[in-house]
């Protein structure tokens, strides 16, 4: 028997099944969620919230942004976000004065801590926003980061 061919056929079949399931809205798409182009193209905090499916974001004291007050180089600015809100579903990091505000977003799945970090480029000193979606609602916290050298010049 041609084992390899059998495997290929099986794979083909399961791909088709998955495609059908996804299009029918049966499977969650969390493993590799579709890249949210609208959110990454948005220029403002409010437009990002809308592109993510919300209306507005409410200010919250239960979101902590860890970032330096001053970054030596805007090419690499470490940003971490932690939230004490209940039922956190996602965390997004925005840089207000970048050409596009949204830098990164994280889906917090069951068992995962509402505590993520990455490093972003900042073209100039700017507010950094953290949008947290929790219990179906959107919350935001803001911190200013000064940049001594812009990070988009190369």
């Amino acid at each position: 028997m041609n084992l390899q061919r059998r495997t290929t056929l099986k794979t083909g079949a399961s791909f088709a099944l998955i495609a059908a399931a996804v299009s029918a809205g049966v499977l969650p798409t969390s493993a590799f969620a579709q890249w949210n182009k609208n959110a990454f193209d948005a220029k403002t905090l409010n437009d990002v919230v809308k592109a993510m499916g919300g209306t507005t974001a409410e200010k919250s004291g239960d979101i902590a942004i860890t970032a330096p007050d001053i970054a030596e180089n805007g090419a690499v600015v470490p940003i971490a976000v932690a939230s004490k809100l209940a039922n956190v579903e996602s965390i997004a990091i925005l840089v207000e004065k970048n050409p596009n505000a949204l830098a990164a977003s994280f889906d917090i799945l069951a068992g995962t801590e509402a505590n993520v970090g990455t490093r972003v480029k900042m073209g100039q000193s700017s507010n950094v926003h953290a949008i947290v979606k929790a219990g179906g609602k959107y919350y935001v916290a803001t911190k200013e980061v000064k940049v001594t050298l812009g990070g988009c010049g190369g």
Partner: protein
Amino acid sequence: MSDPMRIRAQLKDGGITEVRVLMAHVMETGQRKDSAGATVPAHHIQSISATHNGKAVLSAQFGPAVSQNPVMNFSFKGGAKGDKVTVSWTDNKGGKRTDEATIS
């Protein structure tokens, strides 16, 4: 082909596994011009997924504003020493990479 990621997964107090991922990627913004004045097309990681023993623990989306050679930190409950943590990324030009680490 893309260079491997470096994934560090450490079990900490309270049963929380802290994961740090280093990815080798140019993260080109699409805003930069080359020496000839032509815009260098955007080339960046878009989607990342992480699993613990096959169960999804995180999915993330990156725009071009994430720094070159990205670093990502996250943590989750339920991991044990010896368990596998797998991370995959895909970029906007169809590039992809999957690597695995063992929780220590």
